[in-house]
């Protein structure tokens, strides 16, 4: 029983991270019907930005004196950096192809993914980069179940970001404009919504969330690597498809399911195959229910 609860908490942590990444896929797809294969790279770049900022502060000795400030600054800077990176990527690699076939943009996305991941390798090196480790030692124990402070931080922050995103998309005027753009770009223009700005915003939000996930993963596993975006990227994509691509709630639920399945699969079945479960789910969804579990039934939460 304790083992089960422990796994549940681990699954929640991992699932939240997948959910954050999955949102970027699903929102971009919802607005411009493109699967942004370069999205995993924003996650990796975010992880790197985080370690760069935190190491800088650690070097100044601020990590001991102002840990909250350091963390906040690393998240803020990294999310902002990736948001602008994504806006740039969209302008360079996708916008010129908007009137072309969807395949052209898809290939451009694949190219961008390779370009960005190589860019990370060239600027940051091929070896793992360690996160400053003095943060978040320890945790709380409830009998045999231990929740580390870091897990608490990740779960709380993820929750806050997911709630914030929901409010932005479903309660604000700009969120309304985003959904309108996803539904009819010509009509949106006729009510003075600039689709270029909405598309930029969508990329920025998606990449910002992925960057936050990148820092969380860096903190959780203690290091980042230039190619760290690939596997979580595909798993988050599986999560987005599972939830019904284009559907915001779907991406959140899909991320949690993929995270849980991975943790429980690794815990109860086989640790060596942990990366396989997400792909089995992806294939099963595409085969049996390509619109995903929330695809077109609960249409409220499509972008």
């Amino acid at each position, binding site marked *: 029983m304790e083992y089960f609860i422990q796994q549940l908490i681990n699954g929640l942590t991992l699932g939240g991270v997948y959910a954050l990444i999955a949102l970027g896929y699903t929102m971009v797809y919802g607005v411009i019907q493109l699967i942004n294969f370069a999205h995993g790279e924003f996650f990796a770049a975010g992880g790197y930005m985080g370690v760069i900022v935190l190491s800088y502060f650690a070097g100044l000795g601020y990590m001991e004196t102002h840990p909250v400030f350091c963390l906040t600054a690393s998240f803020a800077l990294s999310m902002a950096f990736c948001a602008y990176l994504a806006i740039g990527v969209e302008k360079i690699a996708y916008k010129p192809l908007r009137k072309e076939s969807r395949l052209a943009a898809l290939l451009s996305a694949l190219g961008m993914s390779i370009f960005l991941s190589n860019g990370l390798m060239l600027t940051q090196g091929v070896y793992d980069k360690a996160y400053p480790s003095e943060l978040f030692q320890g945790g709380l124990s409830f009998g045999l179940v231990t929740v580390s402070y870091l897990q608490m931080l990740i779960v709380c922050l993820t929750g806050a970001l997911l709630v914030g995103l929901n409010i932005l998309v479903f309660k604000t005027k700009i969120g309304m*404009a985003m959904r309108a753009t996803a539904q009819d770009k010509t009509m949106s223009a006729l009510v003075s*919504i600039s689709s270029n700005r909405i598309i930029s915003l969508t990329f920025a939000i998606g990449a910002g969330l992925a960057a936050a996930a990148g820092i969380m993963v860096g903190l959780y596993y203690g290091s980042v690597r230039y190619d760290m975006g690939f596997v979580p990227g595909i798993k988050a994509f599986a999560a987005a498809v599972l939830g019904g691509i284009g559907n915001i709630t779907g991406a959140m639920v899909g991320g949690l399911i993929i995270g849980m399945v991975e943790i429980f699969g690794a815990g109860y079945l086989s640790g060596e195959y942990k990366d396989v479960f997400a792909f089995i789910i992806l294939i099963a969804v595409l085969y049996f229910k390509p619109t995903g579990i929330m695809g077109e039934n609960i249409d409220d939460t499509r972008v």
Partner: protein
Amino acid sequence: MSAEPILELRNVHSGYGTIKALKGVSLKVYPGEVVAIIGANGAGKSTTLMTICGIIAAEKGEVLYDGKKINKVSPEKLPIKGLCQVPEGRRIFPRLSVEENLILGAFHRKDQEGINKDIEYMYSLFPILGERCKQHGGTLSGGEQQMLAIARALMTQPKVLLLDEPSLGLAPIIIQQIFDIIKDINEKNGTTILLVEQNANLALQAATRGYVLETGEITLEDKADALLHNPEIRKAYLGE
């Protein structure tokens, strides 16, 4: 009729790639007028409105609004200047609520109080929209969607309202209601209206002047009354 047209097309050509839909359209709309463009299916009526709004680029010629050339102005800037279109097929945002559709009509406006007041005003103009305000736009009937489309356009506070086939697919009684409201908008708010219709009878009764569009060219221009009594028009467009 005041001296300067508020909207003018000068020898406008446009189309879709190799398809030339407009071949030199010229027309003028003066402030306060209701002008009708009538023409058969495929004549280029919708293309004319989409070209005015900048959704389709004019390949040649000029579109002038309020005396200024707007060919190169991006389409989302035009509602801010008071030029607004209710497109063919209404194009309600289907998965946005009725109220959200209205709010987006006022997307460029900052006067929250005025926006709230206008929404209430729309609900008094179209009580059915008030009853359905939380419902998704896509679940409304055709007539209700047409009302919502007009209300959404009014939320932009237009000086010139372009209407593309507001009668399309609606029951006669609803059509009458819609046209009464169009007339009201013109008379009470002083909004200038450019109305596009296949239903020539209806359009010419509502309009002060009319143009006849045939395969991308204006073939006739006259007072609406005169067009209504023109034997050729009666034969070609009024089924006599």
